């Protein structure tokens, strides 16, 4: 039962240095063979992937599903469907839901909703401190038992450095990775744009690069001292890339990611008060943008995430600073990532690794690979199918994307999760 073969496709799996045409055999939710049919394998379903590319299902390190708490913006159901249609088979949800993911009941609620929705897998980061208030340690072990794959305080500050140190130490004690979005709350407070010439001209309150680097430097010191496994997410500046590069060269066991929009947009994109480009951390200079691309190309940055933040229409309908930050980004993660390769900025294997095996490894999951025996989460796409992003092609409930009107070449044709075809694109 449930035997699937993907024939004639171009398999691209950086975790196995696979980059050639081959057939892929799936049985009972797992990859069972590549190239040659196992003995007695009779396919129940066949996908002819001629001219298409098959990669491991995309693993997104940061996506807000808005449930529980902000169901008027989006739900686990709506966003996991949207993710599946975008080739994303695993979503990692940060703890800043309402209620916060700081106790097992919330983990169970989200897990239950995601399972019954039956689309992309959802994994969670537990809160590092109770209520994300930065004061008391959460019950990290209990959260781990409930299924959290890591811990984070989101963008909420932990003002007391001693609390930060003890939180990291305790996380290390549980063997959990801490996911850090470096932000010095005081330097960024009230800001909505990069502290540069564009914000100065527009009269918008700026967020300096130091808001990121000060927090990053502080976290790096504590990570080094406590020995906790750390992942730094959503970096926005050249200075941060340089700091991560230095720390890695010094032998620190850390990883880092960048959101896809930071690789394509910069401060100039807000110059017409375009609230679709209101994001945190803010879009910085063209130099920062290029340094982020370079950091991805040379491996300083391990992963690309969507930093998906779906919003209702009203959230973006106000003067710039009063709008809510964030981009609805599931639909553009793969198209933007592959475009980096199309433009010759980063090679295709590095790009695919950054959205599959690297994030899977960071989350400690047996996915993001086509190895025999691994979960059969697979994304099959056409690299030569021109389409335009509009509200109809954004399947998320949130239509807030600055990429509306952009033309893309990469289109998802099939998404397979646990050996089951969850989505197939039809013209």
């Amino acid at each position, binding site marked *: 039962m449930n035997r699937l073969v993907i024939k004639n496709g171009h398999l691209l799996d950086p975790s196995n240095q696979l980059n050639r045409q081959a057939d892929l055999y799936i049985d009972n939710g797992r990859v069972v063979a590549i190239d040659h049919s196992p003995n007695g394998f009779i396919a129940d379903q066949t996908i002819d992937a001629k001219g298409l590319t098959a990669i491991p299902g995309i693993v997104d390190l940061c996506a807000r599903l808005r449930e529980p708490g902000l169901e008027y913006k989006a739900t686990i159901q709506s966003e996991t469907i949207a993710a599946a249609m975008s080739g994303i088979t695993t979503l990692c949800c940060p703890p800043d839901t309402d209620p916060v993911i700081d106790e097992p009941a919330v983990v169970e609620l989200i897990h239950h909703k995601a399972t019954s929705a039956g689309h992309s897998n959802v994994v969670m980061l537990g809160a590092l401190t109770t209520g994300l208030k930065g004061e008391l340690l959460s019950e990290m072990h209990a959260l781990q038992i409930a299924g959290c794959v890591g811990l984070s305080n989101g963008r909420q500050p932990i003002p007391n450095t001693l609390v930060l140190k003890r939180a990291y130490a305790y996380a290390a004690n549980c063997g959990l990775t801490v996911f850090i979005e470096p932000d010095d709350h005081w330097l960024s407070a009230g800001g909505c744009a990069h*502290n*540069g*010439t564009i*914000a*100065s*001209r*527009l*009269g*918008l309150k*700026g967020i*300096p690069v130091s808001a990121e680097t000060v927090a990053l430097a502080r976290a790096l010191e504590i990570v080094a001292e406590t020995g906790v496994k750390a992942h730094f997410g959503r970096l926005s500046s050249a200075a941060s890339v340089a700091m991560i590069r230095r720390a890695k060269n010094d032998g620190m066991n850390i990883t880092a990611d960048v959101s896809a929009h930071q690789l*394509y947009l910069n401060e*100039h*994109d807000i*110059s*017409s*008060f*375009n*609230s*679709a*480009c209101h994001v945190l951390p803010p879009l910085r200079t063209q130099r920062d*943008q*290029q340094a982020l*691309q370079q950091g991805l190309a040379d491996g300083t940055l391990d992963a690309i995430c969507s930093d998906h933040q779906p919003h209702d229409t*009203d959230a973006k*309908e*106000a*003067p*710039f*600073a*009063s*709008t809510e930050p964030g981009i609805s980004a599931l639909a553009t993660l793969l198209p933007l990532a592959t475009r980096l390769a199309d*433009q010759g*900025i980063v090679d295709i294997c590095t790009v695919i690794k950054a959205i599959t095996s690297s994030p899977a490894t960071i989350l400690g999951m047996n996915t993001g690979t086509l190895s025999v025996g691994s979960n059969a989460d697979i994304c099959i796409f056409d690299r030569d199918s021109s389409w335009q992003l509009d509200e109809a092609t954004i399947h998320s409930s949130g239509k807030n994307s*600055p*990429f*509306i*009107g*952009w*033309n893309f070449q990469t289109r998802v044709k099939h998404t397979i999760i646990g050996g089951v075809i969850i989505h197939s694109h039809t013209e």
Partner: protein
Amino acid sequence: MVNKASRPTDSMIGRDNWNIQLDCNGKLKHFLTIEGLSTELLISILDTAESFANINAKSVKKVPLLRGKTIANLFFEASTRTRNTFELAAKRLSADVLNVNISASATSKGETLMDTLHNLQAMQCDMFVVRHNASGATHYIANRVAPGISVINAGDGSHAHPTQAMLDMFTIRRNKGDNFGQLRVAIVGDVLHSRVARSQIHALNILNTGNIRVIAPRTLTPIGIEDMGVEVFHDFDEGIRDADVIIMLRLQKERMQGALLPSEQEYYQMYGLSRERLRLAKPDAIVMHPGPINRGVEIESSVADGPQSVILDQVTNGISVRMAVMSMVLGREPETDKGEKS
């Protein structure tokens, strides 16, 4: 490295179009910011204002240019001078004026802002004069009003205050003549939070001013301000030297709370315009201030009231300049809206 050619232009990405203040004939449709306007357009505003100044000097100060038009003054932020001069300007042009005062707290949400506007649109107003505490608020409104309605920015956050800048240019031209290329203009004070300074800097640049200086403490200097075409000074005595025009900016009391400055006394010592300091400027330098003045904080009383001060002239000139802008915006042929790009 990014192939910029393959991406749409900014105006295609969002619905908010930057250059919405001009219609398809290059005439002013809205007046939101000085940035991006031509030298010719600024000069024609100044010339039109000059013709209204003559009317304002007469005993009967009314012209029928905007008879039958309705103008709504929408002030989401407190104002006395600006609102009053806009009201007077509209009345002297024979327009009907509706004053709507909305406390900022009641309209902190975008929906309420648009609801307010939709209600006023239903009353068939022709023009909104808007002041709002959020930068970009008037662009936001202008992008969303019905096609026949014009928006004039009476100050948005720290972004722009274009009519103030034009009345300042008018005052400079009346006192110093129309060769801005010979002038050294110093703008002094809290540039960081000042929409007036930003609009003045654009206007002075567009009018080809010889030397534009910004004098401010480092904590109140916007990053990268020199890219807007100014020379930055942190030492007042150095910056004021040989200036023809000195524009003082108002210092808000709350700047002390944000740890931007230690005290008013210290600010006055370092950045207050005293009689002594004024001597470092050209002997015939004029002193300006958009008001309201904090005597003894940014300016000495005897300077504010002294012979070089043109502060009250600025208020008077504000009426003529606002008449000019309103008449240019509303006096266009209505047909020019047709076939305009959306």
